């Protein structure tokens, strides 16, 4: 029997506009929220898996027309969506995951009942849900560590010690990580390596 192959996309939703988002930074002076925390905001309560599905379906239809939506419709499923962390796992068939990825990348706004500007990052594409879950765990751990470190350093900064650089560095690391986390079979570097092997 032939097994139906899927791809699982691990997604982060970012909310760049601080005014319209649900999580407001605490207003008390001296209680500055670190950048890492502000960067990863929770989703609004009305946002859920269904809304995300609609977003993807509409996006694919807009970009690729009936062809795209037809290809994707059969297999598209939101496996996991966590509002508090704005993390989701989306399942698509292996042949068409790029359509979904494109739709996600081009999305700028959540659909209507929520209607918020957003940026969607695909941070990991994997063949099994297990691997994407593991990646989600790894990322959650990483962001906890960063948030704690940032909180500590910001406290230190208020105490009068300048220590902004490590925080900056760490965020940069994080961003690099996110690029590396994406599996791309056509990564130019891989091709180069292959060429090296043959030569």
């Amino acid at each position, binding site marked *: 029997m032939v097994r139906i192959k899927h791809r699982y996309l691990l997604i982060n939703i970012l909310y760049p506009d601080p005014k319209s988002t649900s999580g407001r930074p605490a207003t008390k002076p001296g209680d500055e929220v670190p950048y890492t925390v502000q960067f990863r905001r*929770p989703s609004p309560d009305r946002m859920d898996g269904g809304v995300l599905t609609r977003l993807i379906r509409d996006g694919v239809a807009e970009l690729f027309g009936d062809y795209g939506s037809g290809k994707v419709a059969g297999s598209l499923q939101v496996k996991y969506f966590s*509002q508090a962390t704005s993390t989701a796992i989306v399942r698509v068939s292996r042949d068409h995951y790029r359509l979904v990825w494109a739709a996600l990348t081009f999305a700028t706004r959540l659909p209507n009942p929520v209607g918020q500007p957003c940026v969607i990052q695909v941070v990991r594409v994997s063949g099994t849900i297990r691997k994407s*879950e593991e990646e989600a765990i790894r990322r959650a751990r990483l962001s906890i560590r960063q948030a704690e470190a940032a909180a500590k350093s910001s406290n230190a900064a208020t105490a009068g010690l300048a220590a902004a650089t490590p925080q900056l560095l760490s965020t940069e690391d994080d961003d690099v990580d996110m690029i590396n986390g994406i599996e791309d079979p056509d990564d130019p570097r891989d091709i180069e390596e292959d060429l090296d092997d043959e030569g």
Partner: protein
Amino acid sequence: MAPGRPAQSPHDSGGGDNNSKKRKDAPTNPQHDGPNKRPRQHIDQRQKIRIARTLSTQTTSAAFQNGALDVSSFVKSRAYEIQALENGLQRSKKALNERAFQQVPKELRRRTASHNVKRVPKRLRARAGREMAVDNTPTVTARRRKPSGHMRLRLETVKKLRALGAKRKAEKDKPKDASVSELPAKDVQPGTITTAIKPRTPKVKKSLLATPPVPKAKFRKRQIHKSWLPTHLYHAKRARMTAPSAPLWRFAVPLTPTAKSYRPTHRASHDRGAVAWDMSYISTIQLEGRESSVLGMLKAMGAAEEDLSGRKASKWRAGLRVLEAFLYERESPHELIAPVTMVWCVYANGAESVEAEGRKRKVLLRVHPSAFFQLWEEVLRLAKVAKPAVSVEDLRFEIGSLEITGPGATEALLGALWPSETVSASNSASNAATTGMDVDTTLDTPRSESVGDIWQKLAGLTNPALLPQNALLGFNVQDPRLHHPPRTIALPKSDAEQHQLLELSASWPIDAAQKSCDIFDGKARHLASTTLPSQKAVNRRKALSPPGEYPQALPKDPRMPVLLYSASSATPTNSSKSRQQPKSHNGGSWTLLAPWKCLPPLWYSLMYYPLSTGQQPRFAGLDQKRQLAFEAGKPWFPGDFPGTKAGWEWECEDRRRREGEWRKRPRGKRVGYEKVEMGGGKKGEVGVGWACDWERLLDGPAVVEEAALGVVEDDMDVDGVAAEKAGDGAGSAEKAGEDTVKPAEQEKAKEDAVPFQAPPKPSQLTQLSTRQALALLASPEAKLPTHINLTSALVTVRLTLLTRGVPQPCARIYRLPTDNADLRRQWLALLPSNLPHKKQKGPKHALPRLPKDAPAHVVQQRLAQSLLEPPRAGEDKYPACPAEEDLVGFITTGNYDLGEGQGTGIGSLLLSRVRDGGEERNGCILRSAGTGLGRLARWEVV
């Protein structure tokens, strides 16, 4: 957790029609159990999996109070996510895909367990119970099950018979009642019996065959033609036994455990653990008489002079060592009977003076049951003519035995055997020994120590071969049921303690402390068997003892006499042992002799002993016995001694079995023995393909060959065995193929009616002992007793393959070709010693792999090398198998040897054909029956 675990809903469980189907209704999700709940919501495996895979999530409002963004709630929400994902991973991995019964370790899995929750480990019991409830498979205990069909009839008959028996007994007992007063069994004291009625000591019937003990009425019908071992009930549940219609040596013998055990047995016996057998089927004969006359008898039976008398044997004669020797028939062909283990009883009171010379002494002979009758007749005949008289007693069903091997064997025995005698004085002595490491003090202590005390000091011994060879301990032990379940003993940890153990095994104080052992005393054996308290009484005593403690030993407790000896070799290979040492890592084994009735409690204590290295001792069957003997490079009696009567019978039985297996297969799928390419244009297997065809080896191809082939096949409707013997191999195999179904069926029916009788052994076939064989091989002029016909004398050898391949039973052994010089040269060229020395990576028996980018000159070099490389099996240039004139023997046991990491075998050779082999005398060629491919091997006498 959002999607709650599938819980049993109370509404669903009470459905009236539920009993009709296997699985009960769905344990539904309570969230969805609304008012319009469907009566039958089926939950299947797929749904279960879906539920297990659903991950729980947290809403923003729950995670962030008032929507305020701060570090602590950020961290908490992440932590929740991690938790949820990890849970999900674990749940979907195993939770609902595996049942509780499947999580039990492999060796604990039993099909019988699958209906009883109480049979799974405690940690899984609750889950198993839940699953059983869901599956609607109630736990039934055997006791409360409603007897079905046949069983009900049987039980009714039993009930009727019991009523009749009780009535008869009541009538019988009535008149006696007045005169006899019954005494409770617990008043019976060992040693000093003060009761009014002594337990009747049975009259010893000398020179008569022992009758098996009368089994319980319930089991009597099943033991008409055979007897059960004392631990039969244990084994029958866990092992494959001999078929009820085909007992082995008049016993129901466990053949192999039901669980897979080839590799586990190897590991337990070599690396970690212990393997035990109930060897009660081994027969015991007791001789009683003057030492000189018993020794004379043994000498008449061909035991070697140096084994019996002389300084080396003095310890054996004193009863401090065990001797294993081959015994022969006294009459003219002087046939080898079997290897026999002999144990003397220690001199009474330790008096070894001249006046004790005249006293009677006892010796036990232990022999394999297949050779028992042969030995028994021989012994009886000799005892009649011995002067002064020697009395012979058959102790077959009086003394049982078990054997245990492996690194944990000593530990397990120590846990099960609690010596009866406790000498208070020994405490001070042992203290002195532990504090002062002076050799003198340790040598002094044994004076006051008993054997039991010394035995307990052996804790930490992992290999009985460390002790003096064939050492022996005789002492009395307590009832092991008082210390059941056994606990792991304290093992030595410090270096000083280890040193002490080494010293003990070197000085071996048992030699001074050993007193005459009670197991030689019929009365003591009888007393130990009859005064065993019932399990009920034992339980009562255990209940009275304080929690966590064993009950106190009482002076009235029965004392089980046991005799323990370590056999570091399975067979008497005294002379070859010094030569061949690669197998020395293989530990020795302990053999325990105990009264027949005392064996089950000992066995249970041994089997449930928790080893310090984990797990418990394994039990094993006959197949494992053979396997371990094979791995140790030792021949196994009777299978590997085809020149003896017992070995011949074993071979005939094996032949019959292999033939049956061969015939059972359709013609296209079985080996066509008549078509095997033998090299040199010859076709057809030498002799019968499914047999070690010794007749063919001795007599050569039959002269009727041409005639047999000429005759129309249908006319050859002779009995199968006769045809095999008379006809040439190709002819008989042809005949077997042509055999119509009808005669075969008739034959089978005939065989079922009459138990299989082995054809008589060819009279000239004899087996040589190791010693004789080595002497003959060492010098061409060595003399042999005139009665032995050298041309038909077999010698048991161990074969190691030099190149590749695994020898199979029945494989043919050829010497290197003698009359074909060219072929001989080709074979010699294959010897690893004649090959250019090469040190290489890559495949073991081929040239090293070339790298992909090898330059041209390396490739050319390689090509040249490959031309010089000896031909490999299957290539055209590979030398053909030698002709039948060079056939010298057969493999009786052959397999892949887990210890060696290559194929080895044990077989027998016709000594006269290999005696003058010139250079490379030990080289030989093996060919499995039914193939044409020969493999180089080397043999050595074992």
